């Protein structure tokens, strides 16, 4: 890998982010907060560092796939380091905590270390929500354009081109796709802000919540999350947009062009079935064991299920107090996550679907040892290479999960908290169960554990292998 061709690109992204910091600066000016200086300083530092990075001499050889990997994985980590500055400089958090919070933002996780968000200055709150929104944008491009090109975790099946494209060649296509998807993203953001305003939220809160919903992030401006408003209308709006954000954005794009092909997409159907059946199962559990009335049960079950499966992490009830069955159901949903090409995290529905089909084929193969069967999703049959990648991805996902959980228990965390906090950060959900439940935060954990969980968010968001390659010496050779 040639670090010299990677850093200039990262530098450009860092410069772009410094421009993004103008928005919270404006907010600080509007509310006349003393954080104006903090943001000016942050913009200065970030812009200059980005500028110096971008001036590193680039030999014009162009990008190979391997540099693409480095841009994504290193870029994410470096960007987070600068994004953490406002929290750190404003004195809100220590640096490890700031880094945790920012990584949680950029990866659209929503795990927070701030116990009381309501006392924070508005500009900091806006920045916190805004990084999720930027993160969401990054993820969509990553999922639709970059990862398929790098053939990470079987994502190449979403790639229209023949196998083995160069990253150079993708550039124009990437730009085109990205533009369209950003259009969809902006449109949804606009609509949701308006709908929330109608529901009685003020402009500031509705903007923050919208940013976090579309990115399936989950930072709220209230300690009680969406539960604060206790309004079925607001919940319904947020459920709708969380659900939409968990769907492949290409499908939304097609909708805008007038082609409704949601139900032609097998992944969408699978996702819908999983969401509905989880809601039904949880409604029964809540009906018999908690609320005793069907309307409340449906209301809380549908919000919690959508929030967790789309890996948003908003809460309207303290689901840590739900019966064991509902809690484990949520835990399983954390692993499944959203659809590929959405802002959701987790393993992704398409992979789960293909793995299930693969298992069925394995069984069938034992009975008919000589039959050659291909796995089909819709009408396309899945290549063996992609299958292998998906298996590899699944194995990698579970291995990281197990190792991180073991590390946490080694530090004296109880088993439920350990399992759920790793599942929640690796799947980019946010709140877990036990000590890290929806009504508490990650603030009480020790710095080492926070570092482990920060790593989990990073690794989970970049689909495991994009980050894991950094640990192979081969990767660093020029």
């Amino acid at each position: 890998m040639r670090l010299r061709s990677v850093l200039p690109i990262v530098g450009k992204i860092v410069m772009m982010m410094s421009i993004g910091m103008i928005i919270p600066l404006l907010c600080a000016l509007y509310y006349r907060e003393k954080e104006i200086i903090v943001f000016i300083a942050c913009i200065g530092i970030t812009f200059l560092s980005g500028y110096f990075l971008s001036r590193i001499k680039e030999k014009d050889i162009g990008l190979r796939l391997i540099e693409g990997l480095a841009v994504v994985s290193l870029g994410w980590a470096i960007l987070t380091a600068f994004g953490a500055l406002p929290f750190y400089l404003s004195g809100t958090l220590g640096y490890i905590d700031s880094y945790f919070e920012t990584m949680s933002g950029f990866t659209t996780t929503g795990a927070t270390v701030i116990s009381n968000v309501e006392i924070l200055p508005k500009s900091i709150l806006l920045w916190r929500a805004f990084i999720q929104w930027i993160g969401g944008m990054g993820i969509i491009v990553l999922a639709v354009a970059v990862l398929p090109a790098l053939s990470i975790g079987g994502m190449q099946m979403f790639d229209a081109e023949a196998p083995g494209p160069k990253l150079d060649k993708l550039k124009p296509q990437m730009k085109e796709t990205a533009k369209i998807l950003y259009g969809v993203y902006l449109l949804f953001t606009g609509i949701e802000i308006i709908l929330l305003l109608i529901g009685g939220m003020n402009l500031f809160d509705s903007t923050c919540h919208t940013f976090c919903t579309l990115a399936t992030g989950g930072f709220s401006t209230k300690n009680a999350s969406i539960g604060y408003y206790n309004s079925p209308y607001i919940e319904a709006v947020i459920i709708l947009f969380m659900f939409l954000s968990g769907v492949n954005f290409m499908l939304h794009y097609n909708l805008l062009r007038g082609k409704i092909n949601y139900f032609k997409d097998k992944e969408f159907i699978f996702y819908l079935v999983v969401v509905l059946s989880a809601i039904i199962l949880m409604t029964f559990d809540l009906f018999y064991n908690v609320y005793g009335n069907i309307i409340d049960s449906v209301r809380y079950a549908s919000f919690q299920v959508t929030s967790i499966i789309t890996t948003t992490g908003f809460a309207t009830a303290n689901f840590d107090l739900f019966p064991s069955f509902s809690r484990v159901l949520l835990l399983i949903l954390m692993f499944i996550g959203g659809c590929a090409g959405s802002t959701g995290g987790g393993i992704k529905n398409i992979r789960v679907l293909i793995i299930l089909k693969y298992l069925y084929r394995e069984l069938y193969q034992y009975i008919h040892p000589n039959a050659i069967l291909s796995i089909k999703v819709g009408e396309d049959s899945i290549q063996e290479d992609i299958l292998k990648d998906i298996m590899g991805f699944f194995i990698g996902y579970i291995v990281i999960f197990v190792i991180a959980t073991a590390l946490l228990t080694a530090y004296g965390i109880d088993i439920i908290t350990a399992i759920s906090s790793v599942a929640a950060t690796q799947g980019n959900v946010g709140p877990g169960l036990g000590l890290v439940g929806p009504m508490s935060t990650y603030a009480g954990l020790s710095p080492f554990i926070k570092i482990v969980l920060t790593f989990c968010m990073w690794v989970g968001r970049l689909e495991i292998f994009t980050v894991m390659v950094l640990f192979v010496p081969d990767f660093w050779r020029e």
Partner: protein
Amino acid sequence: MRVRSVLHILGQLLQIVGLSMIIPLLWGLYYRETESWIFIFCILITFLFGTFLKLVFEMEDIRLIEGFGVVSLCWIIIPIFGALPFILSGELNFIDAYFESISGFTTTGASVINNVEILPKCILFWRSFTHWLGGIGIVVLALIILPALSVGGRQIFLSEPSGPKLDKLKPQVREVGKIIYSIYIFFTATQIILLVLAGMSLFDASCHSFAALATGGFSTKNASIGFYNSPLIEGIIILFMFLGATSFSLHYSAFKGKFKAYLKDSEFLLYVSILGIAILTVTLDLTYNLHENILLSFRHAIFNIISISSTTGYATTDFNLWPDFSRMVLLLLMLVGGCAGGTAGAIKVIRILLLFKIGLREIYRIIHPNAFFSIKLNGKKISEDVLQGVSGFYIFYMVTFALCSLLMLIFGNDFITSISSVAATIGGVGPGFNLVGPMTTYSFLPSIPKIILCFCMLTGRLEVFTLFVLFSPSYWKE
């Protein structure tokens, strides 16, 4: 599937099981117990039913596909006859007796009997003897039948390159089978002698030998091996649990004088290192967090870790009271299990090794997209079929584990009890944590959870696919 030949073979095996009941009968006569007459009755029923099946159903040519039927049906039906002594003696009702008997034949060691010390000796002996019979079956299954059926990547153990017929295997089966039996019997005898020398009575020594070598875990004492509180006895049992959990084909080479075979086998080496790391970390954990002195910690750690990782399930202390980290280590060991050619259950070390290699290959493949990597084990290339089998097995195992845990949760068990009971039964371990800890039993569970756990024991023991093939309608077509 040709049901007739399957039933014919089942008949043969039932005759053997019937005849083997003579041994507990002899113990019963020796101790002048009134329960002896039960065994006369059981022998008659089992033997006669076996003969009946054998006479009515003619043997036809056996194809590979009948292998699944033979293996699964035998493991389902033989325990019914194995349960007869428990039922007829009035100790247990049918479901409990079947649970206990399946737990015996699958060498799990999960018990529903709260106070084993008041049971008649002949019943106790039969209980341990089911382990021993099951153990023999498992070694043959692991080294001969499953590789021929290529279940879960098992074909790796076949000496022949591809697709052997079960017919062709017959002479080979007999030959290898004989050698394995003699090693098995030799180990049992040695262990009995050693335990008698260490001060156990002949009766207890043989019961514990049967259970340790088969990695079962039924004891004749309520406090398991903790009853004796003797380092010497613990040492002997540790040795034989370890031997039971390592591959019998390695023991075979050792008998032929090739002791180096152990050191050349990657699976064996990995198993030893996993044990080493686990013992070390748990010893430290116990020393610091339970404030035991280091020798006692080591003694407890080494026994219970080898007991759990060999999927035996003996205990010298209530490991349910250990700190969370140690319990987590034990839970992971339950999932990993022992080596593939032994009597241990669970995923098996060799599969874990291959899974890691698959993960690593995935990383390398991303760095060098155009290179072709093959995975090697012990210097030999592993074919893609095997790798697919291994990943499929792993995923199936995890999915079954998750679904069964969810079912256990639905029946109102707490989180840790649910996952550990499923991990302990599907892995063939025996005791889990919390309500099913080493000092308690499974007797408190209602019938349906017991049936679920019976299913888990069978699924785990038959390596998932063997049993699941039966659920496919097309399997039953002739």
